[in-house]
C-alpha cells in the first residue's frame, strides 16, 4: 500500500495558486530573471559573439566608464531624454485630466468625441513615425533640414505669443515652457490616450452622493472640482505618471542608442552598461516622483 499523502485545504489552495501562476513563473525565471542577471554580467564584460554562442571576458567597470566619459553622445542623449520626460509628464497629466473631465460631461456627440480622443492610442506607432520622418528626409535629402521643415510646417507665429506673455509679466522660463507645450501639442495629445482612459474611469467611479452633498452645500463647479473630483482621482495621478514614464521607453532616443550600440557596432558590453545606467536613472526618477506624489495623495479608503 502506498502511504496516502494528505494535505490540508490551505495547502491545496496554495498549490492551485502556484499552478495558476506557473506559466508566468516559468517565463519570469527563464525570460526575465535569467536575462536580467546575464545583463548585469554583460555590463562588466566584453562579449564576443561566436558561432557556438558567445564568450565573455571580464573587464570590470570599463564599460560604465566608457559610457559615461568616453562615448561622445550618451551623456547628452540620456540627460536630454530624462529631462524631456520630466517636462512631458506634467503636460500630459494636465491635458489628460482636463480632457477626461471634459469627456465626462454630458453633451451631444460625446460618443464621437470620445472615439476620436482615443484614436491616438491605436495610431501611436514607432514604425509610422519612422516612415514619416524618413519620408520627409527623402523629400529634402537631409535629416536636419527635414526636422526644421517639420517644425516650420507646424509653426504659427510664435514670436507674437512670446511677446504677449512677456508683456503680461510672466517669467521667461515659464514662457519657454508654455511655448514648448503649444509647439508640441500633437505629441502631447497623441501620448495621452491611455491616461485619459484611466482618468475617465476614475471620474466615473466617484460616488454620486458626494456631488449631491456639494451641490446642497452650495459649492460652485470650481470648488466641487478641487474639493471633490480632484482628491478622488488623485490616487490615479501616480498611476498615470508611472504609465507615462514607462510608455516613453519604447521610442526614447536612449533605447534607440542602446539598440544601435548592441546590433550596429556589436558592442554588447557597452550596450548593457548603457541600459543599466538608463534603468538606474529612470528608477531614481520614479522613486522621487512616487515619494513626492504619494505624500500629497488623498486616499479615500
Amino acid at each position, binding site marked *: 500500500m502506498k502511504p496516502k499523502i494528505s494535505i490540508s485545504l490551505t495547502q491545496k*489552495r*496554495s*498549490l*492551485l*495558486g502556484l499552478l*495558476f*501562476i506557473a*506559466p*508566468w513563473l516559468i*517565463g*519570469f525565471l*527563464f*525570460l*526575465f530573471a*535569467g536575462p*536580467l542577471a546575464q*545583463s548585469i554580467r*554583460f555590463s562588466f564584460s566584453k562579449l564576443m*559573439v561566436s558561432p*557556438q*554562442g558567445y564568450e565573455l571576458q571580464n573587464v570590470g567597470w570599463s564599460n560604465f566608464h566608457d559610457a559615461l566619459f568616453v562615448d561622445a553622445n550618451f551623456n547628452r542623449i540620456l540627460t536630454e531624454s530624462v529631462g524631456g520626460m520630466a517636462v512631458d509628464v506634467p503636460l500630459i497629466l494636465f491635458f489628460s485630466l482636463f*480632457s477626461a473631465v*471634459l469627456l465626462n*460631461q454630458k*453633451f451631444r456627440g460625446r*460618443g464621437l*468625441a470620445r*472615439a*476620436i*480622443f*482615443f484614436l*491616438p492610442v491605436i*495610431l501611436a*506607432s*514607432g*514604425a509610422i513615425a*519612422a*516612415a514619416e520622418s*524618413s*519620408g*520627409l*528626409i527623402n*523629400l529634402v535629402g537631409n535629416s536636419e533640414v527635414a526636422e526644421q521643415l517639420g517644425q516650420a510646417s507646424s509653426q504659427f507665429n510664435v514670436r507674437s505669443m512670446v511677446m504677449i506673455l512677456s508683456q503680461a509679466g510672466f517669467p521667461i522660463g515659464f514662457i519657454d515652457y508654455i511655448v514648448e507645450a503649444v509647439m508640441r501639442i500633437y505629441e502631447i*495629445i497623441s501620448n495621452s490616450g491611455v491616461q485619459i482612459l*484611466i482618468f*475617465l474611469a*476614475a471620474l*466615473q467611479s466617484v460616488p454620486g452622493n458626494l456631488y449631491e452633498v456639494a451641490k446642497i452645500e452650495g459649492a460652485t463647479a470650481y470648488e466641487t472640482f478641487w474639493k471633490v473630483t480632484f482628491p478622488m482621482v488623485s490616487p490615479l495621478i501616480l*498611476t498615470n505618471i*508611472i504609465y507615462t514614464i*514607462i510608455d516613453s*521607453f519604447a521610442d526614447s532616443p536612449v*533605447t534607440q542608442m542602446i539598440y544601435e550600440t*548592441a546590433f550596429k557596432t556589436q558592442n*554588447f558590453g557597452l550596450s548593457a552598461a548603457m*541600459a*543599466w545606467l*538608463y534603468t538606474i536613472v*529612470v*528608477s531614481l526618477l520614479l522613486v522621487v516622483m512616487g515619494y513626492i506624489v504619494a505624500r500629497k495623495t488623498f486616499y479615500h479608503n
Partner: protein
Amino acid sequence: MASNLKLADRSHLKILKNLQDLNDVTNHNRLNRVKNKSLEGLWSVCRFLLIIGITFVILYPLLMKFSVAFKAKEDIYNPTIYMIPVHVTLDNFKLGLDLLDYWPLLLNTMLYVFVTMVLTTMSTALAGYGFARFQFPGSNLLFGLVVLTILIPMSTLMVPMYLHFRNFDVLGLVQLFTGKEGVNLLNSFWPSVITSATATGLKAGLFIYIFRQFFRGLPKEIEEAALIDGAGGIKTFFTIMLPNAIPPLITVMLFSFVWQYNDTFYTSLFMSESALMPLKVASLPADASQFLPTLMGLDASAKADPNHVALIVDTGILLAILPLIVLYLFVQRHFVESVERTGVVG
C-alpha cells in the same frame, strides 16, 4: 393684555420680515439661476470649441493622408491645391499595394498578432487570477516582481534575450538529446509565441495587473458556491470566473492586439527579416525610392521623384493603419466601457 398684544405684534412683524427674507431669497435664487444658465451656455460653447480644436489636431494628419492618397502625380506641384485633389486617382494605392506586397503581408501580420494576443490574454488571465485569489508562500513578493517587470525598460533585457533565442535551449535539454548547441529561433514566430505564452511579452506585466485588480473586485461567494457544488479550482476558473471577466478580457485583448500590431521593438529584435507590417512600413521609404522607377515602367537606373516617393509612403502608411481603423470603428464603444468596468481604478 397690552404686553400680550405687543408680543403678538412683534411675532407678526417677525413673520413679515421672514416673508420678506424669503422673497429676497427667491429673487436672489432666480437671479442666480439666470446667471448659472448663461454661464452654462457660455461653458458649453467653450467646450464645443475646445473639443473641435483637439479633434482637429488629432484628425488632421489622418485627413492629410487621405487627401494625399487620392492625389494624382500631376497635382504634386500645383500650389493651389489644399486637401482636395484635382485629379483623383487610385494609382497610389496600386503602387502602395505592390510595394508592400500588401495582402500576404497583412495576412501574415494578422496571424502573428492574433496568435500572440490569444496567448498573452490566456497566460496573463491565469496569472492575474492566481495572484488575486490565492495565498501561497511569497505571493506578495512574486506580485512585487510582476510590478518590477513593468518598470524595467526592455532595452536592459534586449541583448540576453536576443542571444537566448539565437541559441534556444531550455536547461541544456536540446544539447543533451541532439548534441547540438541549441536552436536558432530568430525570424520565426517562436520568440513571440514563447514570451507571450509565459506572460513575459509586450507589456504583459500591465495585463496581469489589470486582471488581478478585476478578479479581486469579484465577490468571493460565487467561487465558494462553485466549490460547494463540486467544481474544482481549474473548472471554477474556466466556467465561472472567466465568463464573468468580459471587461478585462476585452481590454487586454484590444490593447494587446493594437500594441503588438504597432510594435517595432520586439519585431525588429527577433524577426528583423520577417514580413511584418511595422517592419515593412518602417523600411517603406527606402523601398519606394528604390523600386518606384521599375514599377512605373521606367528604366531601373532612373531616379524616383522624391515628392512622388513621399506620396507613395503616405499611402503606404494609410494602408498599414487602415485595418486598425476599421477594427476600431467596430470596437470603440467597448474600448471605453470595458476599461471603466475593469476596475483598474478601484
